């Protein structure tokens, strides 16, 4: 990459939010690749997956070296079977799916029927919400943030807020935090149910861009 930008011979130091000069397309291309050109839009879509009747949905190119915080949205989540947890999360550590009962969860359930606490220190997945049905309108939606996935020195945290029209049916929601208490590099995310296929889904994964 050239050290000169903007036709200014002194080649001023360029950084996000502090660009000086007039830029050629090549300058912009080079600076963008170097994370030194001011482009707004730091919620960056990594991948959207949508479909029907699958056992699992895997995100295996999550760009964990680029983002410290990931954001995932869930829409039109419906299970093939009735009364199912349709948004269970498992993480890939260096390509190996962690399926052991090592995940922790603390979730507050809220519904038009009752409120309850759901907590565990030994779960085989981050269970974001249960109660999904397989009839019309019995779908789940919500979002989750993931922290430190690509940092091998830190645990992987998740915060989330989900809601659904349940199989009973009534309105049901849950928010809370989840944890993979293992200092490891997480490079993939699996979405699954606790029984049967995911009938319909649209799941998007974003990275939240940082600059130092």
């Amino acid at each position: 990459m050239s050290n000169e930008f903007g036709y200014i011979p002194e080649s001023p130091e360029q950084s996000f939010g502090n660009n000086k000069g007039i830029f050629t397309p090549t300058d912009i291309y080079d600076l963008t690749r170097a994370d030194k050109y001011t482009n707004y839009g730091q919620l960056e879509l990594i991948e959207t997956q949508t479909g029907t009747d699958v056992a699992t949905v895997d995100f295996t190119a999550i760009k964990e070296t680029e983002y410290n915080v990931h954001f995932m949205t869930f829409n039109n989540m419906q299970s093939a079977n009735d009364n199912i947890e349709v948004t269970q999360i498992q993480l890939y550590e260096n390509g190996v799916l962690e399926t052991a009962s090592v995940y922790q969860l603390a979730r507050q359930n809220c519904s038009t029927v009752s409120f309850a606490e759901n907590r565990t220190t030994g779960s085989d997945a981050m269970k974001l919400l249960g109660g999904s049905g397989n009839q019309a309108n019995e779908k789940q939606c919500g979002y989750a943030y993931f922290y430190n996935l690509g940092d091998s020195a830190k645990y992987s945290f998740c915060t989330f807020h989900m809601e659904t029209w349940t199989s009973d049916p009534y309105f049901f929601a849950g928010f809370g935090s989840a944890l993979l208490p293992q200092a490891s590099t997480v490079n993939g995310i699996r979405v699954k149910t606790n029984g049967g296929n995911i009938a319909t889904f649209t799941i998007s994964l974003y990275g939240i861009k940082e600059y130092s």
Partner: protein
Amino acid sequence: MATNLEFINSFEVTGTVQSLDCDNVFSADYDVYYLTVALKESSAGNDQWIRIRLIDNAGSVITASEYDYAQLNLISNSSFVESRATGQAQILYGGIGYTDDTGNGAGLYVFNPNDSSSYTFLQGQGGSTVGGTLYGTKGISVHKSAETIRGINFHTTAFWGSGTVNVYGVK
């Protein structure tokens, strides 16, 4: 509808500190802001909360008893705990920074800080660990004074040795 985030600034803990000012981040450009917060204590055994105050239009940290908050602490091995108070000199915030964990993660939304005719509202959600146990938090808070707010201060009664706060405008 919000469609994207726009990076405003990043603030990093340098040295051993009890306070981190994120000043000159709120402006007329946005009504809503999103912050990622990861702060870590520098010595074992303190286990103190991250607390928040706002910075007024003159650059002063607001220490008056003008804050209300309500927070649910979600713990993975025991009953959840409510933390709530009115007329406080700071906001008790989640995303606790303990030494005995391996990182933490939290997000915070701030609403209407630049609007001189509105209170400033906040929503936070985070996760941390204490002795290997997950401590989640989710809370709401308000600064009950209609004035222009230009920044936010994080502080603790312990000490931080590392950490970063990133501030984004929600476009």
